[in-house]
């Protein structure tokens, strides 16, 4: 049954909208902007900041436009005297409990409260400063996320993000009235609670209360030290989003310009995480086929379904919430950490460099990667494999600091060795991408033929559904793989940890019979990562997804096993997939973590 339409007037202009539309959405149809703060497209409606109040004729109270559905004959005023003065009061109230030390704030210029204060000229400090001393102590315990309660405006976007999108609830509202604050379990520091470091809260915080731990100065120091060789790797999802912070529209691919900008900044070698994404496919694909052989032929008890291990937020989630399934996780390191281990071994050897004099930087769409690079397991080169992780946003800031006019840059190419990649690696940035890349290669290994999909595009594993499942019947196998002939390979994909939990619960109950599962901690995959440009919402994620697949289609090589540098590294260094060297450098183990 289709919804009926409702007729109303906003600022005396008539319009008809679908029943159930909020005043906020209806006003957008007429291009009336109603300011918001606690509202976010990805989240449920809270209606608690009251910045969006509007006047509805005949009502004594103002209504929150984000929380009020329209009704027949409604007359709304979005800019009456009553509305304007109330809004200004509300913004002034928010400022009075906010540590408005803007010039020193990391979010200076990107702060939604600052923008509102500026629009409403609410900077006269009418009200008494209420910032509490207790809140000025900044929590820097986590290597990924920094929490400064003195800048919190209690919009609860972070709380809703953590609960609704991620199902983690590391952040919650505690106390009431003037003592209310956003805190963790038992007010513990962030590194001691069940926080996956995904950074989705950081991406949604309107102010500087939640920010990534930034390592920009450390990276400049390394670049400026002539005795240090600084290598940088860039993740697949950075190239399709970086432009958003530097003057390009959403969905613009800026791979070549990003490489050129990194050279200008002064990195000694600009390399690509995509190379190790291809390598991941070779290692992980072989691991999957080995597990399947053990299960189907040797009758051994192996942990199936095998689960991907590229997303450090997902890994920490598993370690906390489903520690009984750590054996299901692929032992492969994430592409970032594979790269780090190779940069200080293979790359150093080939270039004749002392690994102690290499600083390895990675540009990631992710805040959890900052945690991952500091894990004690990630030192297989003998040094910390990846020294610093910068988010897409931090790189954009560095490019601005360097005074580079990004839009006018020429397109450049990655340096070689560890710079070559295929389309299969690029799609790691989108949900379902690792699955698709793995299938492209595994299918060809097993059957000797390309996957039977148009243009290699495996559409069933793509899309924004929270949990996707697909199955492929394997036919036409090569002789050594004939134990897979006729086998129905069941795969599933989840993105966003709330969806991952749904999938894991089904597996725990024995309701699902999958062989291979891909999970990405962030909605949409890495392209919707916590370190990506702000804002990120469904519409933006869809545009970034299109860009990722366009980048894939534009690559001359689109299957990981066809990457010539991957072939080369096995010939010269690693010898064979899952070999001794691989195990030493490219594989890892996990640990059980407490739930409280």
């Amino acid at each position, binding site marked *: 049954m289709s919804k009926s339409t409702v007729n109303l007037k906003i600022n005396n202009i008539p319009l008809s909208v679908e029943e159930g539309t909020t005043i906020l959405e209806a006003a957008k149809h007429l291009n009336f902007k109603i300011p918001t703060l606690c509202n976010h497209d990805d989240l449920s409606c809270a209606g*608690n900041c009251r910045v969006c109040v509007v006047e509805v004729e005949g009502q004594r109270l103002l209504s929150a436009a984000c929380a009020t559905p329209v009704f027949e004959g409604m007359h709304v005023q979005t800019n009456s005297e009553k509305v304007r003065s109330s809004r200004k009061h509300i913004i002034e*109230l928010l400022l009075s409990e906010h540590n408005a030390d803007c010039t020193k704030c990391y979010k200076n210029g990107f702060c939604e409260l600052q923008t509102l204060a500026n629009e409403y000229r609410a900077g006269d400090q009418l009200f008494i400063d*209420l910032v509490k001393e207790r809140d000025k102590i900044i929590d820097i315990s986590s290597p990924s996320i920094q929490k400064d309660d003195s800048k919190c405006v209690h919009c609860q976007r972070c709380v809703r993000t953590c609960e609704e999108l991620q199902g983690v609830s590391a952040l919650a509202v505690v106390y009431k*009235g003037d003592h209310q604050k956003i805190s963790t379990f038992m007010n513990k520091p962030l590194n001691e609670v069940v926080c996956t470091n995904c950074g989705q809260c950081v991406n949604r915080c309107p102010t500087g209360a939640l920010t990534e731990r930034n390592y920009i100065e450390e990276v400049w120091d390394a670049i400026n030290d002539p005795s240090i060789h600084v290598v940088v790797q860039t993740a697949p999802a950075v190239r399709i989003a970086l432009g958003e912070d530097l003057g390009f529209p959403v969905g613009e691919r800026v791979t070549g310009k990003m490489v050129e900008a990194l050279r200008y900044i002064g990195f000694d070698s600009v390399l690509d995480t995509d190379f190790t994404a291809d390598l991941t496919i070779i290692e992980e694909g072989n691991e999957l086929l080995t597990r399947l052989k053990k299960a189907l032929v040797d009758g051994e008890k192996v942990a199936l379904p095998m689960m991907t291990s590229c997303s450090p937020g997902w890994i920490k989630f598993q370690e906390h919430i489903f520690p009984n399934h750590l054996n299901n996780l692929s032992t492969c390191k994430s592409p970032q950490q594979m790269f780090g281990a190779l940069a200080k071994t293979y790359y150093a050897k080939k270039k004749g460099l002392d690994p102690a004099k290499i600083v390895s930087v990675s540009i990631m769409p992710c805040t959890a990667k900052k945690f991952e690079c500091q894990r004690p397991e990630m030192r297989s080169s003998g040094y910390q494999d990846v020294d610093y992780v910068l988010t897409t946003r931090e790189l954009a800031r560095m490019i601005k600091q360097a005074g580079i006019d990004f839009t006018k840059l020429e397109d450049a190419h990655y340096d070689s060795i560890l710079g070559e990649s295929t389309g299969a690696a690029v799609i790691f940035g989108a949900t379902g991408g690792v699955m698709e890349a793995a299938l492209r290669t595994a299918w060809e290994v097993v059957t000797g033929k390309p996957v039977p999909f148009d243009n290699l595009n495996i559409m069933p594993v793509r899309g924004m559904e929270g949990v996707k499942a697909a199955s492929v019947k394997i036919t036409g196998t090569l002789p050594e793989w004939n134990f897979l002939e006729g086998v129905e390979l069941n795969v599933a994909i989840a993105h966003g940890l709330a969806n991952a939990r749904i999938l894991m619960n089904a597996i725990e109950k024995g309701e699902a019979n999958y062989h291979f599962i891909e999970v990405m901690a962030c909605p949409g995959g890495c392209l919707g990562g916590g370190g990506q440009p702000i804002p990120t919402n469904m519409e933006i994620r869809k545009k970034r997804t299109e860009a990722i697949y366009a980048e894939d289609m534009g690559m001359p090589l689109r299957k990981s096993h066809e990457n010539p540098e991957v072939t080369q590294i096995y010939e010269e260094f690693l010898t064979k997939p899952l070999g001794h060297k691989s195990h030493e450098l490219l594989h890892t183990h996990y640990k059980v973590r407490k739930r409280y």
Partner: protein
Amino acid sequence: MIFNSSRSMYNILRDYLEFFTEESCGQCTPCRVGCQQLLKGIEAVKKGQKAPGYLNDLKKLSATMKIAAKCGLGQSVSNPFNSIIDNFREEVIY
């Protein structure tokens, strides 16, 4: 509510505002921050840290709370506030 003439209306108002500040759930801005501002505001006027005219600003604030707070608690703060400020203004100031 009835009080005899020996009671300090300033103290009564302060008690009201302390109650609202503490009992506010803290969700919506007008109530959570508004209550704190009214309380600190009358204390500042009493101590001479703010000019008596500041009470007029606070009255405007309480009018916003009355129409913009999410629930009845925040909306009702302006009733005792305005009543006492309007009828016993000098007791609050001096």
